[in-house]
């Protein structure tokens, strides 16, 4: 007899809703919302995701299934509970359901069927892996057929080339990397600069991209940025990455032709300085947290061609650098 049965968990979820509906009389009822099944795979020492999930729920209400890989766990166990919040000025609380499954890594394959039974019908299934070693588990491939989109984070990986290679090799699932999502603000700023026809006229002559990065190795998002710009400009650009004393990640970038330069550099706090020709502007440039990155990524449930192209280009660049 399996320790964790989907049917039993679904019954518990149902009872949970009935209980919430009865409430304490003060909450004036409960609204239920669900737009997807959101599976989070994380390690036992890294389970501080409650706040991120709670923050995501208002915009991406989901059934969250949190799978905790715990080497110390003897067997698979599960519990269900609700994430509720009371929007300001409203009398009804909004609740989303959460299933937490703890499993020893070796039994990951056993929970594939549990997850299958718990996914919400007719809605997309997205998995966020916070566990870099997940790729190395043979059981990982059992989970892939269950999901529509896999979200990983290559931020801080020591072997960018190896990591990108693994991403490229994942079959038949949409893949997203939060390192690419971190680039949106950079990319959007570049795009907005060249909305100006005066600056856009400089594009044909641009021949050089310089990326300054902090940290021990060039970050994957440095490769992504270079690959994306190169693809946008038809591949006729020389890219280089320079180490600077700064927080890990991209610190600055500059696009150059003979007489024109467009640059973007992070400043202290949540600001950046943009220079394009004689134009100088300060921009709000918040460092995104997991919530902000996932909020963006969960909006995209189809192909992201720009990312797919950048992933292939970044892999090539990382191999040759």
């Amino acid at each position, binding site marked *: 007899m399996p320790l964790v049965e989907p049917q039993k968990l679904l019954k518990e979820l149902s009872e949970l809703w009935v209980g919430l509906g009865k409430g304490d009389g003060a909450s004036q009822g409960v*609204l239920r*919302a669900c737009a997807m099944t959101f599976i989070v795979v994380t390690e036992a020492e890294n389970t501080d995701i409650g706040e991120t999930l709670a923050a995501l*729920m*208002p*915009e991406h*209400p989901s059934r969250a299934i949190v799978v905790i890989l715990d080497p110390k766990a003897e067997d698979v166990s599960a519990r269900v509970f609700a994430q509720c919040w009371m*929007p300001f000025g*409203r009398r*009804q609380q*909004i609740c989303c359901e959460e299933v937490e499954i703890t499993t020893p890594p070796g039994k990951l394959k056993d929970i594939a069927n549990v997850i299958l039974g718990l996914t919400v019908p007719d809605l997309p299934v997205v998995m966020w892996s916070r566990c870099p070693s997940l790729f190395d588990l043979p059981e990982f491939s059992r989970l892939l057929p269950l999901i529509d989109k896999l979200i990983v984070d290559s931020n801080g990986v020591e072997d960018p080339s190896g990591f990108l290679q693994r991403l490229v090799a994942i079959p038949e699932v949409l893949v997203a990397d939060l390192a690419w999502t971190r680039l*949106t*603000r950079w*990319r*959007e700023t*570049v*795009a*907005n*600069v*060249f*909305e*100006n*026809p*005066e*600056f*856009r*006229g400089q*594009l044909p002559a641009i021949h050089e991209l310089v990326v300054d990065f902090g940290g021990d190795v060039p970050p994957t998002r440095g490769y992504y940025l270079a690959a994306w*710009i190169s693809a*946008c*400009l*038809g591949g006729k650009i020389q890219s280089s990455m320079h180490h600077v004393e700064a927080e890990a990640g991209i610190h600055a970038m500059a696009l150059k032709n003979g007489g024109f330069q467009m640059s973007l550099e992070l400043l202290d*706090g949540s*600001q950046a300085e*943009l220079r*394009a*020709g*004689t*134009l100088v*502007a*300060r*921009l*709000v440039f918040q460092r995104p947290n997991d919530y902000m990155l996932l909020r*963006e990524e969960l909006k*995209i449930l189809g192909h*992201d*061609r*720009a990312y797919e192209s950048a992933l292939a280009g970044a892999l090539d660049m990382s191999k040759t650098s």
Partner: protein
Amino acid sequence: MSQANPFQDALRFERSVPPCAMVIFGANGDLTRRKLLPALYQLAHDRRLPAGFTVLGNSRTAMPDDAFRDKMKEAVQKNTEGDSPFDEELWKDFASGLFYVAGDISDAATYNTIRERLEEVERTRHNGGNVLYYLSTQPSQYGPVVQGMGKAGLQNGNGWRRLVVEKPFGHDLESARVLNQTIQTVFPENDIYRIDHYLGKETVQNVQAFRFGNGIFEPLWNRRYVNNVQITAAESIGLEGRGGYYQEAGALRDMIQNHLLQVMSTVAMEPPALFEPNAVRDERAKLLRSVRIMTPDDVLQNAVAGQYGPANIGGTDVPGFRQEEGVDPNSQTDTYAAATFFVDNWRWAGVPFYIRTGKRLPKRVTDIAIRFNDAPLSLFRRDGEGAQVPPGAQANLLILRIQPEEGISLRFLSKHPGEGMHLRPVSMDFNYGTSFGARSPSAYETLILDALIGDATLYTRQDMVEASWKAVAPIQELWSNSKFEFPNYAAGTWGPKASDEMLARHGHEWRVP
């Protein structure tokens, strides 16, 4: 032709605003302080404005740029609707693009100075000569301002030039036509953006998503299944210092002619072939042109004017309209207007569209209620002893809520749990604020952004404005020649009895929102 921007990524980036400047006429006025600058600051905060974005304000009051910036800072701090705290650093950057030109709009020199300042900021702030002009002056000054701009050549430059005009567009059909002609001598119709902030509201836009993004409801969206449509825009407040304006305008002109007929056109229009500005506006215009024009006899049957009298609401004495400050004690102004419109096309023939609006009603609410026909054969007893459906049960209703809580509700009958077959109405609710926790942009943020991008979908066109004036013209004419026995409803009630009677003649009654 300039090359396309190779860096754009429509999947992830918000629509981008090209480099540009915005000139606000009436920059010292209430609208600029309460709505325009807060909306622009919020757009800057959300990174929606291009680097080098410039605002050039104009009004009569003499003040240097810095004094204008200080005034606008105070206005933004007081009126910003977003949930982000005011950011000093961001403001500094935003304020560096705020400039001011003092000058009387009747003086040709004012427009020449504006032209010179625009040429200067084009050089220093790299905005490519693109300019959005915003008329935020008294409506009577729209014509003279546009003529002044024309004489100074402000409609021409290195980039695009667009004009946003606030409502009201005239005070009747004839004045609307004259105003349109005046404006069109300077700006082509494609560059004129007549703002109706109701169309910028998220739920009004969602009506199109709801109707044309789903296959479930559109098959029911016609005379075979819809019994009647009720559009309500109720305000619980009185004049709030707008006595002078309101006394001249009245509820019919202030709300029905523009906002509510535009809302009705969104609810009732045919699906456009494409979701692009002129295709959508063509369908709205066609619908407005299909509104049956009332005869004087029709007006007597299908339109009701009201004016509130004094009352005590919750222990507080509330003055009647005629007792409000700045109001003529014998005023004949309608503070309540209700009308039954019919749309003469194949989809809607015979379906009444009831529209009502008023001040000092019991609560602030704007919604659209679509009542579907009852089941053709009722299996459940509705009357007498042992009735299975409670009397007056409100079901078969689809409610599109615009304010205060934006969302959609479907009311239908459901079996009450337990013994027997007793039915009761239940509500299935979709709430914008709770289903999507993200802040909805204000109507002004949406509409200003659209104008800067050049998307006129949510703006009204000359033919739409004229069609809606035509629809209310017979009512205006009869009312202006009538003497009403006002007041005819007490503050805090749902309007005059005649309004209920108007629906009763069709066998209907107002729902209580």
